[in-house]
Every structure is written in structure tokens, then in C-alpha cells.
């Protein structure tokens, strides 16, 4: 039958087991010779004397009340004890971390802490508390859980585990769990306090395994202002939304899916549209907008108009139109960037449009992309010789001329370099216009950016009558300040030649996102972002930070 009162509780242990553990640690004599050593036994008053060996009764003891306090504090100085034994106590204390830490605190280096607790599957024989046998037991222990409590409580570099033992001496496994156990049923854990190594703090520093390697070339130092910011979101969908669709009839039709998407995303919001007068009827017929505002940013037919107001003038006119209105969100549904500045004169908490945040810093929701109209267009231009520098000949009219034979120069010596031009991404062909004045020979070329540190092309440059060598260049990203260098080839020959510049051309690319798709992308982005709009605040002052 279960016994649940403290007084009637059976003991899981056997004092002789404790002594045997001490003996294995070479500590039995310390206990027996208590007068010459500092030993503390922490015990529970209710169980004092039931099976503690005589040797342990004689030493200094702290008898705690049972059920016990949250934690114990030994009345001892730090590092003053050789041995602390906590026998049948830990399982009764709620603050096991503080108690273990305090027992450990009083140990000298080389001193031992011996813990004895009832074993969950020998003494308790139950999956979860409460205990059948002792109501004061707050927790059940296996070797793992006991060790976990120690690991939580103690600096891992301050002790070593010397003994961890599950004692089932004379335990009768035939006795069913609802009957009182026969035999030993405790867990014993003995720790030795060690001198904390000098490197301990380094080990406990999470940075210790990551040594800086010194590859820092692209990292700037401290910025003039380095605020801690709090980027806060709030579930507050926009109530008043302004949509700009000020371009032409076809543009308006292509924008319809995006407008429909916005209405679906914000079904209860007030949606106002700004459009050219030529699109007003279409806009009203759509039934998506609560208000339609006319504004002629473009003329209806550009070729019929000669005196178009400047962009600044049109923005000012729009500002007058927007006076007294305010919105939670304003969106410019135009891919080309010419209308973007209209957003600057709208009083809105959030502004959305195509373009990069760098260029349009007023955009809270900026959809950056490579405009297919610009990036996809074919290009062709001639870079004249005056954009190049020569080290061997002279500039002569529209050419660089080297009339003398300069053979014998070292392989790699530069002859001509320039033009430090910018190239958009794409497939480029560089046609070097160079011709021999006498016999054919070979030079070399390289194409690079970042003052030669980023070489994107290198090869042999044949200088032949009737031949214009071509360099193919595929650029995934834009390059600024591209340098083309023409140098002495491996044969060291530099025959008389004439250089007439470089023709560069880029093939047009046709696969692109459709305008309608781009507008839907922007509308989707806005709908997604505005589910949880956010603002950036200075964490200290709570003032908005751009």
C-alpha cells in the first residue's frame, strides 16, 4: 500500500552505501576522523537517524525541516569544507540550483560534494510526481535528470564527476510498484571541486571558437550615427488608400488586374484613384474605387502638344490637387519612374512604387527591378581614341598612331588604355578597331573594372589587315569605369599600327516581365506588406527614423 506521509515514508537508501561511496573516493577516513577535517552533512530532520551510519552522525550537520524550504544556505565560509554530503535532501528543495551552488560554494578545491537522492525507477517506481511514498519529494530522479540539475547549477569548468551510481543493492524487482520497495533504491553522485582553469572564461565565451581571420577589406568603420532602432509592426490595415494611375488608356487597361488585386486585399478601405481625364469613365465603370480624381500629368496625345509643363510644374499642380487630403497609403502604379515624384506631395504614411530605395528615399515600399525597357534595349556606340591613353604612339586626329617598330618591349607592357566607360548588364561585343601599318602581329588585351582588380575578360588581340578583333563580354551586373588595356603580346612584337577606337554593342533582349505582370507584382507586394505595416523608431527616443 502507498504511504504518503513524511513520517511514515520509507528511506530509499542505506547508510552503508553512502559510506562505501565515500570509501571509493578515499573519503571515509575524513568522515571517521571528523575532528581534523571539515565535513557537513545536510539532512532532513524527519529522516535523521533512520539509517545514517554512526560515523556520519558525529560530524557537523544541517538538519532542514521537512517538507523543506525552497533552498538551503550553509552557515560556512566559502571554500572552507572538505566534504559536503546532502543525503535525501535535494528532492525536497524547489530551488535545487541555489542549494547545489551553495553546497559547492563552501568546498575547498579538492573537496567533494556527495548527493544522494531516491531513484525514480527503484524507489518511486512512477512516471510523474507526486510520490507514492513521500509527499515531500518534489521531483523524481534518474542519473540524467540529477546530472542536469548539477549542470544547471554549477560552472561546468569548476568540477568533475567522480561517481554517478544507481544503487539497487538487495533491491527486489519482484515487488510491484504499488508496494513498498525492498532493498536500496537511491542515486549517488559525487563531485570533486577542481581549480578553475585559467582558460575557463574563454571556453564559456561563445566567440571563442570563431577567431577573426583578418579578411576585412570591405568593412567600413563606425558611422557618424549608429542608433539602436526598433522596427515595430502593428496589425492595422490602411483605411485610406490613394492609387496613382496617371498614364494612358492602354496603360490603364494593363493596370486593371493590379487595381482589382488591391480592392480584394483591402475590401473595406476607402480607395481613391488619380487618373487622366481620358480614363475617368473607365475607372468609374470598374466599380473598384470610392473616389476618382482627375489629373493630367501627361497630355492625352503627346504629339498634339508642344508646350508641356516641366515636371516640377506638374508636381506643383498635383500638390495643389492633393492639398487637404491625407492617406494611410499611396501607390504609384507606373513602371517608368517619371511619375514617382508625385508621391512626394501626397500626405501618406506609406508610399509605394517601383524603383530603388536609394533613388527614391521617400518610398516606404520600393520594388526594385531592372526595367526591361532600359536593360533590354540594344545599344551600339563608338568609343573614340581620345578616350584612351597611349604609351607608345601619339594621338593623331581621330586615331592613335604608332609609326615605329617597338618590338622588344616586355610581354604585358601596356600600350593603350581607357576609356573608363560604364556598361549595363547584358551580352556585349567590343570590337577593337586596330590595324597594322606594315606586317601583322599579335598583342594582348584585358578588360577590367575597379582599377584592374576585377578582370572580366583577357585574351590575344590579333593585329591584321582587314580583321577587327571582337571581344565577347557577358555581364551579369552593371560595371562602372571599365578599362580596356592593350598590351605587348607573348612574342614581344610591336609593329607599327593605328588604333581607331572601340565599337561596343549590346544585343537587345526580348524575354521580359509584361507591364501588367509588373504592376500585379507591385500590388501584391503592397498588399502583403500592409498586412503588417511597420515603422522604424529610435529605440531611445521613439522618434521615427528614416
Amino acid at each position, binding site marked *: 500500500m502507498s504511504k504518503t506521509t513524511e513520517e511514515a515514508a520509507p528511506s530509499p537508501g542505506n547508510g552503508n552505501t553512502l559510506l562505501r561511496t565515500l570509501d571509493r573516493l578515499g573519503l571515509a577516513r575524513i568522515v571517521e576522523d571528523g575532528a581534523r577535517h571539515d565535513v557537513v552533512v545536510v539532512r532532513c530532520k524527519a529522516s535523521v537517524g533512520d539509517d545514517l551510519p554512526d560515523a556520519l552522525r558525529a560530524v557537523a550537520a544541517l538538519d532542514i525541516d521537512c517538507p523543506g524550504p525552497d533552498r538551503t544556505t550553509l552557515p560556512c565560509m566559502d571554500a572552507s569544507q572538505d566534504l559536503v554530503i546532502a543525503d535525501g535532501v535535494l528532492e525536497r528543495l524547489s530551488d535545487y540550483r541555489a542549494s547545489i551552488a551553495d553546497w559547492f560554494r563552501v568546498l575547498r578545491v579538492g573537496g567533494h560534494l556527495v548527493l544522494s537522492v531516491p531513484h525514480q525507477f527503484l524507489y518511486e517506481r512512477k512516471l510523474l510526481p507526486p510520490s507514492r511514498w513521500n509527499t515531500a519529494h518534489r521531483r523524481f530522479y534518474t542519473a540524467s535528470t540529477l546530472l542536469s540539475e548539477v549542470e544547471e547549477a554549477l560552472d561546468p569548468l569548476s568540477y568533475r564527476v567522480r561517481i554517478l551510481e544507481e544503487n539497487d543493492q538487495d533491491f527486489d524487482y519482484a515487488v510491484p510498484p504499488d508496494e513498498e520497495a525492498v532493498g536500496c533504491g537511491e542515486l549517488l553522485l559525487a563531485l570533486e571541486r577542481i581549480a578553475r582553469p585559467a582558460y575557463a572564461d574563454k571556453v564559456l565565451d561563445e566567440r571563442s571558437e570563431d577567431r577573426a581571420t583578418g579578411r576585412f577589406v570591405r568593412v567600413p568603420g563606425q558611422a557618424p550615427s549608429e542608433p*539602436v532602432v526598433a522596427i515595430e509592426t502593428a496589425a492595422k490595415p490602411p483605411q485610406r488608400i490613394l492609387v496613382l494611375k496617371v498614364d494612358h488608356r492602354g496603360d490603364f487597361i494593363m493596370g486593371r488586374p493590379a487595381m482589382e488585386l488591391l480592392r480584394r486585399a483591402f475590401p473595406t478601405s476607402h480607395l481613391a484613384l488619380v487618373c487622366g481625364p481620358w480614363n475617368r469613365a473607365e475607372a468609374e465603370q470598374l466599380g473598384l474605387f470610392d473616389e476618382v480624381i482627375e489629373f493630367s500629368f501627361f497630355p492625352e496625345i503627346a504629339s498634339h502638344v508642344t508646350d508641356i509643363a516641366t515636371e516640377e510644374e506638374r508636381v506643383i499642380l498635383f500638390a495643389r490637387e492633393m492639398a487637404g487630403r491625407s492617406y494611410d497609403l499611396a501607390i504609384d502604379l507606373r513602371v517608368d519612374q517619371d511619375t514617382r515624384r508625385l508621391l512626394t506631395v501626397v500626405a501618406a504614411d506609406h508610399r509605394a512604387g517601383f524603383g530603388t530605395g536609394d533613388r527614391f528615399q521617400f518610398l516606404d515600399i520600393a520594388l526594385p527591378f531592372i526595367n526591361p525597357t532600359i536593360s533590354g534595349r540594344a545599344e551600339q556606340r563608338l568609343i573614340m581614341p581620345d578616350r584612351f591613353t597611349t604609351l607608345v604612339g601619339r594621338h593623331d586626329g581621330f586615331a592613335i598612331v604608332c609609326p615605329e617598330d617597338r618590338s622588344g618591349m616586355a610581354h604585358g607592357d601596356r600600350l593603350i588604355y581607357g576609356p573608363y566607360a560604364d556598361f549595363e548588364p547584358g551580352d556585349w561585343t567590343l570590337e577593337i578597331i586596330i590595324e597594322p601599318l606594315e606586317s601583322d602581329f599579335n598583342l594582348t588585351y584585358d578588360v577590367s573594372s575597379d582599377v584592374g582588380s576585377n578582370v572580366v575578360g583577357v585574351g590575344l588581340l590579333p593585329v591584321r589587315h582587314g580583321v577587327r578583333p571582337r571581344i565577347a563580354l557577358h555581364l551579369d551586373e552593371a560595371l562602372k569605369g571599365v578599362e580596356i588595356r592593350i598590351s605587348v603580346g607573348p612574342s614581344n612584337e610591336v609593329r607599327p599600327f593605328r588604333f581607331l577606337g572601340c565599337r561596343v554593342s549590346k544585343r537587345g533582349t526580348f524575354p521580359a516581365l509584361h507591364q501588367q505582370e509588373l504592376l500585379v507584382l507591385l500590388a501584391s507586394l503592397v498588399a502583403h506588406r500592409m498586412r503588417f505595416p511597420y515603422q522604424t523608431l529610435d529605440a531611445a527616443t521613439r522618434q521615427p527614423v528614416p
Partner: protein
Amino acid sequence: MSVAIVIAPLSNDTLRDWPLTHFERLARLCVDRLDARIDCVGIRAQRVAVNQIVRNFPPDRVRNLCGTMAWADTAGLLRSASCVVANNSGIAHLAAGLGVPTVCVFGASHNPYEWMARGPLVTTVHRRTGCAPCAFGSLAECPFDKRCLREIAPETVFEAVRRACAAADATVQGSPAAA
């Protein structure tokens, strides 16, 4: 006001981790000033490291649950929290997506506007150091001793936690979020 706070102090990259000593200080502020009960979560391999946070607290105040819960069970724990505090890590995204008030301490390795956790009640605390964002892949590459995170004070994050808990409390009571 007694609040339940979940702290996920370690991500899968030390470059993103706010120092453990800062988390310990934050836990102290939360316990002392908010009467908080805190659960630290993580995987089993992080348990010993997280002991550095919990060691000086009573076990019924600050628990180390590293390695004790499956990912699916973690969501249940997060749902019951007044606030979840994490680095730029999966737990932050999970908590934010669940709509739990989330405070994310975000280092400079990544652009927060590109990678921060999104949800209805998220505060991302970030220091705009001159080197941000560096896009480094490991702490070994950082020449500044991770000061983007080290120089975010526990008191600053605590203020965000306090506001998040107040907002959660106000939401539960059906009134507007407290400022």
C-alpha cells in the same frame, strides 16, 4: 503583472547571437520588474550553453527547456507566451507568424528589412552600425567583435519586451495596445 516569456537565446550561427550575458541580464530585468516566468528554448546541443543564463535563477522562475521539446511542441509553448525574445532565427519567425508578441534582437550581418520576422506584433531591435549589413557568413569574419549585437543594451531590449507584454495584455483584455 505576471508574464510568461520564452527566450530562444541561440540561433544556428554565433554571428547572429546576442551575447548570453546580455540574455541573462534581460532575464533578470524581466523577473525583477515584470515578475516574469521564463522558459529558455533551443536544441539539446545548446542546453549546456543556456545553463549560463538560467544558473542564477530559481528553477521555477527560469527554466532551461533546451532539447526537451519537438519543433511542433515548441509552437504550443510560444502560443501561450506573453512575449517571445529571439535572435534572427527560426523561433522568431515561428512566433511572429503565430501572432505572438515577438522581440527579435537582430545583428548587422543581415538587412533587417530583408530578413526580419513578420507578423502583427513584432519589434526588431537593431543597431545601425557603420558596417551593417556585412553579409558575413561567420563570426570569424567580423573585425569588430560583433559589436552590432554587443552594443544593444539589455535595458533597450527589456523596454521592447515590456511594451510587447503590455500590448499583449491589452489585446487579451480587448483594449487598444498600450503605448
